[in-house]
């Protein structure tokens, strides 16, 4: 059976799945709205969590949190599962699809056959929605793809039970109940407040604005610590995290700016438009940072060692983001 499900492409996978699932239940929210209400905006640089043997830099909250927060703030009831048993995970999924319920799945991208080979890393926080099944072929709505794709039973098992950093363990989630009326305004306010709080006040140097400064500080030591070549690899990892499919860091800043702009209308607060413009400028700075960083890749073996200028760019970005969230923190009804 194939559920009649509208597939819309999005910039980021979890926004996309959440937005598409909500649209299926008649709640029409744009991707930026989902991202903002779900407080998806974040920054963290965690040297102790490794991907490809290098520190993880992330430009958004943990996978799953956007969906969790959006549904919570809108009063939508959901169920979520994780599994040990592969066959059971698939059986439960089949049962839900048979009932006409689209199901969000957390998957690893490495074994996704429809992804370009070059994008297949052991990245285990991708979201797709399963929207149909027939004779062991599954239709999935992957928000970064332009169209609906298919996966075989074995392929789906493989991606749901991918291994590596943060294995998805067959996680799935779906909506069980949607309230008649939703309070979009207070959801937006909670979303903004939470993001501002997390960006400004977490007392650990790895997160929020402090995290950006922390990355800047560490970056200055890379050439000495790792040598020219490994330093460039670390930089490359940051850029990939910044601009990877479904994670886009500079992209997130633009999505958030779009959210602030849309919210300015919904909440009737014109000053949010100015903050949105500031956020756009920050997004452009992140892009500039990527452009500069990319110059190092080309000369990676020649031992260019001035990571200081890149770190300075990051410090500038940190100051500007701080200014934005100091304003947003004071938002009221």
């Amino acid at each position, binding site marked *: 059976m194939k559920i009649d499900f509208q597939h819309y492409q999005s910039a980021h996978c979890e926004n996309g799945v959440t937005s598409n699932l909500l649209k299926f239940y008649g709640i029409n929210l744009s991707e930026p709205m989902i991202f903002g209400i779900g407080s998806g905006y974040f920054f963290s640089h965690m040297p102790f969590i490794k991907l490809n043997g290098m520190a993880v830099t992330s430009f958004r909250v943990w996978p799953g949190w956007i969906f969790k927060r959006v549904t919570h703030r809108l009063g939508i009831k959901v169920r979520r599962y994780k599994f040990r048993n592969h066959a059971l995970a698939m059986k439960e999924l089949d049962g839900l699809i048979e009932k006409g319920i689209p199901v969000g799945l957390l998957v690893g991208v490495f074994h996704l056959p429809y992804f370009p080979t070059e994008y297949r890393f052991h990245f285990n926080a991708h979201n797709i929605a399963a929207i149909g099944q027939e004779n062991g072929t599954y239709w999935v709505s992957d928000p970064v793809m332009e169209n609906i794709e298919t996966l075989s039973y074995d392929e789906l098992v493989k991606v749901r039970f991918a291994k590596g950093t943060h294995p998805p363990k067959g996680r799935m989630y779906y909506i069980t109940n949607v309230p008649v009326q939703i309070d979009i305004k207070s959801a937006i306010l909670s979303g903004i407040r939470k993001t501002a709080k997390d960006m400004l006040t977490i007392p650990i140097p790895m997160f929020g604005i402090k995290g950006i400064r922390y990355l800047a500080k560490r970056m200055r030591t890379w050439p000495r610590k790792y040598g020219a070549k490994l330093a460039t690899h670390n930089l490359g990892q940051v850029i990939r995290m910044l601009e*990877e499919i479904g994670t886009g860091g500079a992209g997130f800043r633009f999505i958030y700016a779009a959210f602030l702009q849309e919210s300015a209308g919904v909440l009737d607060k014109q000053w949010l438009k100015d903050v949105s413009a500031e956020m756009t400028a920050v997004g452009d700075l992140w892009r500039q940072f990527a452009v500069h960083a990319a110059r190092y890749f080309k000369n990676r073996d020649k031992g260019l060692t001035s990571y200081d200028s890149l770190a300075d760019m990051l410090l500038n970005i940190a100051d500007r983001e701080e200014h934005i969230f100091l304003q947003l923190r004071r938002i009221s009804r």
Partner: protein
Amino acid sequence: MKINEVPQDKGYLIKGKISDLNYAVDQNGVYTSTQSQGWQPKNEALTMAWDVVYERAEHARQQIMAGVLSPVAFYMELNIMDVNILASYTGISKWKVRRHLKMKVFRKLRPEILEKYAGVFNLSPDELTDINIIIETELKHEN
């Protein structure tokens, strides 16, 4: 970013199938979204990441031809895995996987074990043990 600045630098994305959705402002400063075919800095970061993988695989290949490392080491690198990931995919313990990276140990492996590794690498057991395939594998980008 303005809508006319959305990059269209062809890289690894496939037109009509997969693209990046970018949010950007139009002439009036209003946000809209549009598809991007890729962006140069991102493409270069990706190219570099794969160069690293190929470099490591090449190193493993040299060691295999010298009779030190086993094909498992080569395919592990090619699949961007490390001993941790490979161990959890195969269900073989890490210290055993580390031993299996050596040619001397690999030669004596039971067929069941070979099959496990071959399955993870999407190969048949015969393909896994065939050194010629490794020698002939081209380590470079498609485009």
